[in-house]
Structure formats: C-alpha cells, structure tokens
C-alpha cells in the first residue's frame, strides 16, 4: 500500500512539472489558435502537406545517415578493446553542444551553399552521438555467443551481424532512431541556415507564423500536425523498445570487448573516418576563430577575455561561460531529480501496468518534439497565473532546459533500472531494508554509472540549449550560446572572431565537463543509452 502511495507521489512530481511547464502552456497557445479561423484552411492547403512531407523526409534521411554513421562508432565503443575509446566517446558528444546556427554556417562553408544534402548531413552530425551511445550501450551488453552460434552455423561475419546482432540491437536502434528523428523533425537553426529561402519545415513555418505573422491558427494547425508526427515516431520507438528491456542481462564489458581482427578493422576504420568527419566542422570552427582577414590572430580570444566583449555583451567571455555552467547546473540538477523520479516510477510500474508505463514514457518524451517557440509563447499566456508572474523570471531558464534534459535522463537511466534483477531488491528487503532504503542501497549504486552518463549528457544539452534560454535569460547574464548569437549578429571582424572563439570556449567547457563527469567511477558498467 505504502509503496503504491510512494509511487503515486513519485509519478505526480514529474508529471505535475510537465503539466505546468509544458502541457498547460502548449495547450493554451494551441487553444488560442484553434479558437481562430484558418485552422481548417491551413490543413486543406496542399502546401502544408508538402511541408509535412519535406519535414518528415529530411528527418528520416537525417536519421538514416546518423544511424549509418553512428553504428560503426557504437561498435567501436562497445566491442573493440582499442586505445582511445574514451576519446571517441567524448568527441561524438561535442556536436551536441554547438549552436545550430554556427553549425549551419560551418556546413554552409564546407559544403557550398547548403541545400537538402547539407541539411541532412548537419542534422546527422548532431545525432551521431545519440546513435553511438544508445546502441553502444546495448551492444556492449549483448552476449557475443549468439553471434558465435550463427557463425558456426555457416554465417559469415557480415551475415551473422545482419541476421543475429542487428535484430538484437533493434530495440536500441529503434530508440535512438526515434530520439534522433525527433531532433531532426524539429530542427530549426540548421534548416534555416542551410535551407536558404527554399527549404522550410514545420518547425520553421511554425516559428514564422507565430513570431513574425502572429498567425496563431496557422501555427496551431501546423503544431498539431507536428505533434501527430512526433507521437507516431515515439510509438515506433516504444514498440521497438518493448522487447528489449526484459531480455537484458548485465554482462561485464571485459567479456564482450575484444581486440578487433580481420574484417573488423575495416569497421573500426569506418568509425574512425566518421569521427574524423565529425571533427571537420569542429576544426573549421577552431580555424575560423583564429583567422582574420589579415592572417592568424588570437584577437577573438583576447577580446573575449577583455573589455571588448564586456562592451558588447555586458560581460566577458569567461563570465558568459560561468553563466552557462551555472544555469546548466541548475537545469541538470532539476532534470536529474525529476527524470530519476520518473524513471523509478516507470521501472516499477512496468511490472504491474505495462500500458500505463508506456503512456507515461511517451508523455515524458513529448517536450523533445514540440517547438521551443510554441512552449515559449505558451509561457507568455500562462505563467502570469502562477505566483510571482514567472513570465519574465530567470528561473524559467533552468525549467525550460530541464524540460529538454529530463526525457534524456529517463531514456538513459530507465533501461538500467529495469535490468536490475528484482531479486536483488528482495534480498535487501529480507535483510531489513525498507523500500526507500532498498532504493538507496541497491538501485542508486547500480544505476550510478548510467546516472553519471545521464548527468554528463544532460549537462551538455543544457549547456547548448539556445531557444528557451535566449528567450528567458537575464540580459546581463548571457550564456555562451546566447553570447554567440549576439556576437554573430553584429558586423565587424572582431565580433565574428569573438563569436567563433566563444564556440571554441563552449566546446572546451563541454569536453572538460563531460570528461570530469564521466571520469567518476561507480562499481557497475554503464548500460545506459546515449
């Protein structure tokens, strides 16, 4: 009984958070739109469906590219005992933190003028990490012997991979694909920069209609279409996941990772190539930050550290970095608390009410699939009803960031919690541990590793968050992404140098933060996704 009450309370907190800071604002803004005329008109317009087709098409293509590029890296991370694996893990995380505007510009200069291919590649660039970490997490824990059995039955390495390993990985691949698809389907900056005036997606169109035209009915119609697409993608992911989380047995990584041999080196080669390609835009940013019209220069960096930045931004680059670190910390902490609560509830619910758990799981993911603009404008028409009129309050920044981070935390922690043998908890209970104590003594330490991974990854996402932050951050305390956007929107060489230097600073901060977080070792191996 008391367990049920505790579960109820545990579920209520994250759900209440979602309702207040997500569902309510979104519903309010959609409600405003749906009250107007023009919804039907937008839905009847064939252009709308072209838009839908392009949005889904580019997202599907991007997801496919991310999968193809991410799987070799997942293999490298999960199965190959080679030096530098940790470094690869770090490198694939870097893209996640880069502002989409800057990445868009980097791809624009690398690939000529953008276009569909550039959009797809840039979207994929962001999401290789999602695939590599999600799939790698499961792969590292798959029993090698199923493959061995297939090999002995006459399957070549490749055939064994496609006929045995790939199906076994399907849940993780489905899960990664769903998340990546969400990111790509709601991709904004990339499509804007690389799409020029030609390519538009639901997201850019919703932005345009909401922000420029104040066409709320049109925006609401498109948002509903987007929501439907997102729910569809989530359903696919959920179905794919359903099989897995039971089948998991924790295996030690030493049993599964080995030195590659023969054809396996080719895959390692592909993985290294992909990592190299991921680094290309990164390097181009570094180079850009160091070059001026008149040759190499550290001017951007020195200006960022000094008064030049202060006069444009009100703060120095270091202050902006500090602001970033601090807000991201708050957001990550909040997201961890909420996400872990949700994950615990979900892991417990599943034994009893599978459907309910799946529904809740899906609801938790929705924030990834709804426009930041929709949420932001929703805040405007709702948050004044809360005590203290939160509409202009900087506390909304970590709240909004947490909205994006929380689903990721759930995705990473949940599989591990589900993989913990329930009998371990029962043993603890029989030794006198109350349910709460069981959680502290068993679940927490065992999920610790993935919790750390979630912390690292969530922190990166919060560091890189721009949409909500630019909307809500206090002007005298810009975060690095906000600072970058301000700097890049001004003429003058020094401003541009400072913008690129800020990007490099952001990458460094990210790498250091993630490396530190992931360095902390807890007894068990990571089984988490991402």
């Amino acid at each position: 009984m008391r367990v049920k009450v505790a579960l109820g309370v545990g579920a209520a907190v994250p759900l209440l958070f979602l309702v207040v800071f997500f569902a309510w604002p979104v519903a309010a803004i959609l409600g405003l739109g749906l009250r107007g005329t023009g919804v039907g008109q937008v839905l009847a317009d064939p252009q709308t469906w072209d838009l839908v087709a392009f949005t889904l098409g580019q997202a599907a293509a991007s997801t496919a590219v991310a999968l193809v590029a991410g799987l070799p890296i997942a293999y490298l991370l999960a199965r190959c005992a080679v030096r530098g694996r940790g470094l690869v893990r770090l490198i694939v995380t870097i893209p996640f933190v880069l502002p989409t505007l800057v990445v868009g510009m980097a791809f624009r200069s690398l690939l000529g003028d953008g276009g569909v291919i550039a959009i797809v590649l840039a979207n994929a660039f962001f999401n290789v990490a999602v695939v590599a970490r999600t799939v790698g997490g499961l792969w590292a824990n798959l029993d090698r012997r199923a493959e061995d059995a297939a090999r002995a039955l006459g399957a070549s390495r490749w055939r064994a991979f496609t006929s045995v390993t790939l199906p076994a990985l399907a849940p993780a691949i489905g899960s990664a694909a769903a998340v990546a698809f969400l990111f790509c389907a709601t991709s904004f900056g990339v499509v804007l920069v690389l799409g020029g005036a030609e390519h538009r997606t639901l997201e850019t169109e919703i932005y345009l209609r909401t922000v420029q035209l104040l066409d709320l009915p049109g925006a609401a119609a498109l948002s509903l279409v987007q929501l439907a697409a997102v729910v569809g993608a989530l359903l696919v992911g959920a179905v794919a996941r359903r099989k897995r989380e039971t089948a998991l047995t924790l295996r030690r990584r030493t049993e599964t990772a080995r030195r590659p041999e023969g054809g396996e080196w080719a895959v390692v080669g592909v993985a290294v190539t992909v990592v190299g390609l991921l680094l290309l835009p990164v390097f181009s940013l570094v180079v850009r930050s160091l070059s001026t019209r008149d040759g190499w220069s550290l001017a951007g960096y020195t200006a960022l550290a000094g008064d030049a930045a202060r006069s444009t931004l009100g703060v120095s680059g270091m202050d902006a970095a500090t602001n970033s670190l601090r807000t991201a910390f708050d957001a990550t902490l909040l997201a961890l608390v909420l996400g872990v609560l949700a994950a615990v509830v979900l892991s417990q619910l599943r034994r009893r009410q599978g459907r309910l758990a799946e529904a809740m799981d899906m609801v938790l993911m929705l924030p990834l699939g709804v426009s930041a603009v929709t949420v932001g404008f929703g805040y405007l028409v709702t948050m004044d009803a809360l005590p203290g009129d939160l509409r202009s309050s900087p506390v909304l920044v970590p709240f909004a960031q947490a909205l994006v981070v929380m689903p990721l935390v759930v995705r990473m922690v949940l599989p591990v919690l589900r993989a913990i043998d329930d009998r371990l908890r029962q043993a603890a209970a029989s030794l006198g541990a109350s349910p709460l104590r069981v959680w502290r003594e068993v679940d927490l330490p065992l999920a610790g590793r993935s919790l750390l991974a979630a912390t690292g990854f969530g922190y990166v996402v919060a560091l890189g968050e721009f949409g909500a932050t630019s909307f809500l951050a206090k002007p005298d305390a810009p975060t690095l992404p906000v600072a970058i956007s301000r700097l890049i929107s001004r003429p003058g060489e020094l401003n541009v140098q400072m913008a690129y230097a800020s990007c490099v600073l952001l990458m460094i901060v990210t790498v250091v933060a993630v490396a530190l977080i992931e360095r902390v070792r807890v007894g068990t191996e990571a089984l988490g996704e991402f």
Partner: protein
Amino acid sequence: MGLRLKDLTVHYGSVAAVSDVEMSIEDGEVVALLGPSGCGKSTLLRAVAGLERASSGTVSWDGADLAGVPVHRRGFGLVFQDGQLFPHRDVAGNVAFGLRMHGVDRKHQAERVAELLELVGLPGYGARRTTELSGGEQQRVALARALAPRPKLLLLDEPLSALDRALREQLAMDLAVLLRRAGATALVVTHDHDEAFTLADRVALMRKGKLVQTGTPAEVWRRPADAEVAAFLGCTVIVDGVVADGRATSSLGSVPAPGVVDGPVRLGLRASALRTDPAGQLTGEVLQRVHRSDHVRLLVRLDTGPEVEATAPVTAALTSHTRFTLDPDGIAFIT
C-alpha cells in the same frame, strides 16, 4: 511454535500457483520443499517472505498473523539460486548489509561478519570483490549474508542448483551441517531429491500448487503417496503386488516390506532395484547400457515381460542375457 501456513492460496491473475497449502515448521527444523519445475515452490516461499500477497489463507509466526507485516519487518532471511550478491559491495559489505539495516554498530558488525565467514568456510574473504568469487563461494557468502542478522526463519530457493555437480554435492553436505550448527529454522526449495534428503529433517512434496505429501526423507523415499510422487522420486516402473506377513510379492519375486499393511500394494522400481547377480532369480535381455560414474545403468527386457532399468558394477562383464536379483533398497511401496 514457528511458522504455520493455513489454507494458503496465491494467485497470479486467475491461475492459482499455490492452492490451499497447510504446513508448519517447528523452531529449529529444516524442511525441504520438493517438486517439479513450475509446481509453485518459489511462489510459496515468496508468500512466506512477504514478497507475494496471499489470495486467501494465512501465514503466521508463533501464532501471529503476518498479513500486515512488510518484507523487511518479518526478519526472514532469503537466499536465491544465484546468490544475488550486491555487486557494488565487497564480501564483508554484503554480509554486513542486514546488520547495517538493523543499526548494529560497526564493531559488532565486523565481529559478526568474521564469525559468519568463518562459519561458511571463507575466513579472510571480507575484502574480496564478489565478482571474483566462484559460484560456490558466492553461494556461501549469500548464506552468510542471510544468516548474519539471525533470521527467525531462513528461506532458501534452490540455493545450490546453479553450481557444478561436484560442488553441489559438497556444499549440500556443508549446508546441512551448517544449518544444524546455526540452529536455523529453514525452508529449502529444491528439485533435487538427493539435496532435499541431505538437507532436511522433513520433506514436503508439492505438485501443481498443492502439497501432496510430507514426511521424513526415509518415509517419503520408501512410501511415496502415489504413483506420480514415486515417479518423481525415480521409480521408472510400477508393478502390482500383494503384501502379506511383512513381505511384498509381485511378478518379480518377493521382498521384505516392513511396516506395510497387508493387502494389495504397488511397487515402484528404481534403477537400483534390479542388480546383476549371477545367482539372481530373474533373467532378461540387456537392451542398452550407459556408463555412469560408479556403475553402469542398463535397460533390460525381462523374460517375464516388462522393460525395467537395472544397475551393474562398472567391472561387470555382461552377456546379452543376464541374471538379476531384486534389491529391496531400490523399491518404494505405494499403498
């Protein structure tokens, strides 16, 4: 007083995994719960531990109903087939776990841990990581962990079945001694009759959720309640017979049947009931032979008709037609 189950029934959905079980375990007694896979042994154990809710009936300890008492307040120790040691704690940390939960101070924790590691034959193993232990060692640590807080009742769910054959036999003996020495009251689930007999004072036989027989190992072995129990306990062939004057007579001959009431009886024959013997009364054709470690097991068609199993020494030279004698130790009586 100890444990008493009254009319205990546990449902999974609409299926009754345990139905109407009546049973009691006295203080200091070790009872083995024996039965085929899926018959509800674990469920019964879990219901006693408080991990499964009874649909009806009661579990009581020393007369007090345990219905409202949660797992962690029952004070029953639990050991699983595969130990389920906490992987993030070392051996001492595992053994001390229950003591910590009960607020025992560090000094006494350390003493008790040392005492228990001694008891299970792993002195000085405290600082080892559990992943570095062999399966048998892990099981012994699990046992020490369960014993540490001096549980009123120890619940063991196939404590040995994950182990190697040799180790399992060894550990069964050790465990039997250890339970006696610790004066533990225990309920042991197993599907290995040798293990049940080694460990327990009393054996309870389960089938399809119901208790079909309880008794001492010898009673159960010699006098199974019905043909199915007999088959479960290794009787491969059942023949009809009649008891008179303390002897049972059947088509295979006559054997002493002490304590069996006069009248019709069914005889359950184990492989050891028929042994090769040059002076034997029975003859038969050897259809098949497989080596066991210390004997050869034969499939024989007796000239009188039935196909039965028989044993021969490893050294025996067998002709295709061989003589056999009945060994009363290999025969069970079903009345």
